[in-house]
């Protein structure tokens, strides 16, 4: 509990741990992996003093399984990992989507594929975070672009998970994870917390997957007297497995509709100098820092360039782009991957304007000067 707001010099991973505590996370299960390990170390230290619990599991499969179990027991639960561990979590991520279990996975991205470049930055897991687990499923993915945002987005991730009964992925790159900055952390009492809605009807009336008017079913914790069944099989409103086509449709469509209802709230997008912009840079995570610096230089030299900063990657905030398409002549998407968000931008753009990509996959960042040069080339 932080009673007053305080300035601290911390790194992104520390900000995530602070955000988790501020959001009311009281359970963490994880497995050591670079470059996310600081989050586990800090929460192992801090959780017990807050009455929370930490456990180091035998692998990342067990880590996500344990946080699902703890969440079903009523705790706000979070884990942190990086690419190889995130790959191992995909199986149970799907379970959490289908069984509608609130949880947060922090993925501090490193270079891939496979063991890749463990200490180097990358944004290679954008598509994996969307489609990594099998089957159609909704997902919420947030990507912070500063140390301070790492704190606030962690809080939002926990709140969205609780509100929508859905896993949320905090997709952070190693740049933000290990960058140190002086940030102001608010007092705990000022942090907005959302707690999952519990059932208030008598237990014998409770249907664990009957959606309320919000599109989300109230969630009972095991041990609260609302005995019910949780399964990874497609299920009916009672939570029991079904092969009935109509019930199966209601189950899967219901997962999507709850996220569609919250689409505007979930989509975190910031616009910088976009009012008169004829050219846009679309960036997220650590690339926002290079883009912002490039923007300054380009504006100084009289180019009408703006920045669309994506805080939410999935669901893709298409309206943020669509509203500016009529005024834009070019769009540049710099990413530390081979063009994963670029494809989404192309899809939304649908041929209306020129979209270019700027990519890097060698463990180094794209510098502001490179962005300046590329934008100037595009404008010409």
């Amino acid at each position, binding site marked *: 509990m932080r009673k007053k707001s305080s300035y601290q010099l911390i790194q992104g991973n520390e900000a995530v741990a602070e955000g988790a505590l501020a959001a009311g996370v009281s*359970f963490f*299960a994880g497995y050591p992996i670079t470059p996310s390990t600081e989050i586990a170390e800090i929460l192992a230290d801090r959780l*017990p*003093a807050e*009455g929370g*619990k930490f*456990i180091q*599991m*035998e*692998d990342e*499969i*067990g*880590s996500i*399984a*344990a*946080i*699902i*179990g*703890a*969440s*079903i*027991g*009523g*705790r706000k*639960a979070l884990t942190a990992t990086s690419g190889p561990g995130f790959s191992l979590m995909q*199986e*149970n991520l799907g*379970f959490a989507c289908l069984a509608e279990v609130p949880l947060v996975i922090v993925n501090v991205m490193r270079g891939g594929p496979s063991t890749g470049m463990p200490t180097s930055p990358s944004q290679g897991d954008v598509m994996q975070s969307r489609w990594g687990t099998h089957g159609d499923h909704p997902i919420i993915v947030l990507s912070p672009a500063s140390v301070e945002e790492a704190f606030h987005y962690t809080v939002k991730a926990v709140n969205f998970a609780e509100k929508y009964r859905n896993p949320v992925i905090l997709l952070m790159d190693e740049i933000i994870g290990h960058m140190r900055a002086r940030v102001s952390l608010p007092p705990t009492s000022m942090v907005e917390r959302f707690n999952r809605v519990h059932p208030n009807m008598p237990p014998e009336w409770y249907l664990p997957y009957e959606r309320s008017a919000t599109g989300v079913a109230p969630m009972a*914790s*095991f*041990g*609260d*007297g609302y*005995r*019910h*069944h*949780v*399964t*990874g*099989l497609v299920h009916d409103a*009672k939570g*029991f*497995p079904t092969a009935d086509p109509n019930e199966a449709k209601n189950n899967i469509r219901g997962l999507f509709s709850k996220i569609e209802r919250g689409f505007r709230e979930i989509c975190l997008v910031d616009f910088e100098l976009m009012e008169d912009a004829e050219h846009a840079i679309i960036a997220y995570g650590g690339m926002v820092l290079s883009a912002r610096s490039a923007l300054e230089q380009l504006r100084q030299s009289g180019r009408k360039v703006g920045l669309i900063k994506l805080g939410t990657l999935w669901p893709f905030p298409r309206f943020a782009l669509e509203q500016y398409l009529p005024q834009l002549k070019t769009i540049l998407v710099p990413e530390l991957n081979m063009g994963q968000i670029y494809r989404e931008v192309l899809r939304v753009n649908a041929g209306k304007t020129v979209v270019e990509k700027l990519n890097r996959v060698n463990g180094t960042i794209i510098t502001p000067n490179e962005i300046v040069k590329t934008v100037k080339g595009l404008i010409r």
Partner: protein
Amino acid sequence: MISNSQLVNKYFRHNKKFPHIWCPGCGIGTILGNMLRAVDALALDKNEIAFVSGIGCTGRAPVYVDFNTMHTTHGRALPFATGLKLARPELKVLVATGDGDATAIGGNHLIHACRRNIDITTIIFNNYIYGMTGGQYSPTTPHGDKAYTCKLGNIERPFNISQLVEAAGATFVGRTTSYHTLQIQSIIKKAILHKGFSVVEIITHCPTTYGRINKKGSAVDMLKWQKEVAVDKSRADKMDPKELEGRIVTGILMEKQLPEFCEQYDTIIEEAQSLKNNQQGKSK
């Protein structure tokens, strides 16, 4: 003892469409029924029981019974149960898992749960085969026996589950067969009362796949075989290893008291909180 109709009324879900998915002659129902009798004998509150499973024929057990039930992913019942137990230590957590679920895909989770000594009771339904997928060899299929992925005979050596979990650090290990129904009840009762990680291995039969391809006869024949090969630990201790070849030792094979994970974590919480209070006191 509770009558069959009372048992069905009290513990089975009335709002779940029966029949169950198990084949005629399957041993899983016998084990589940006797697990429920053990629970009833202990007079546990249904709200305080969590029943967790993985995937396979055994994995379907929780859906039928009126507890807090979780049917998880293949091999992962134990880490789900671990998270739940830590979140709600007051719950009695029971895990139902098959031989493939527990010792192949979930083998790593099994040995680490043993090592941690977290207060969970794991019942391993060992029928020597993957039944739900139609009869492929599992880590407990005996050497030389057949399955639909080793029609010429299994060239792998099987795990002895009870020895495996004992070596991994389980603090209670019991074994019986689906023939020995009263022993199922008595061992499960003791396993639930045991503070720490308890494993009950129950040898059972799959007449549909393992029985058919290995020409073991009917379900009744397979039960008779379980009766014949079982030898109680008290007798087995006096027999020499030659005599014990091909026999299955039953009973409580091992029991010891060691610090339990959740209780130890509670002392960590107390220590961390008093440390924090001291630091806050100093800074004032």
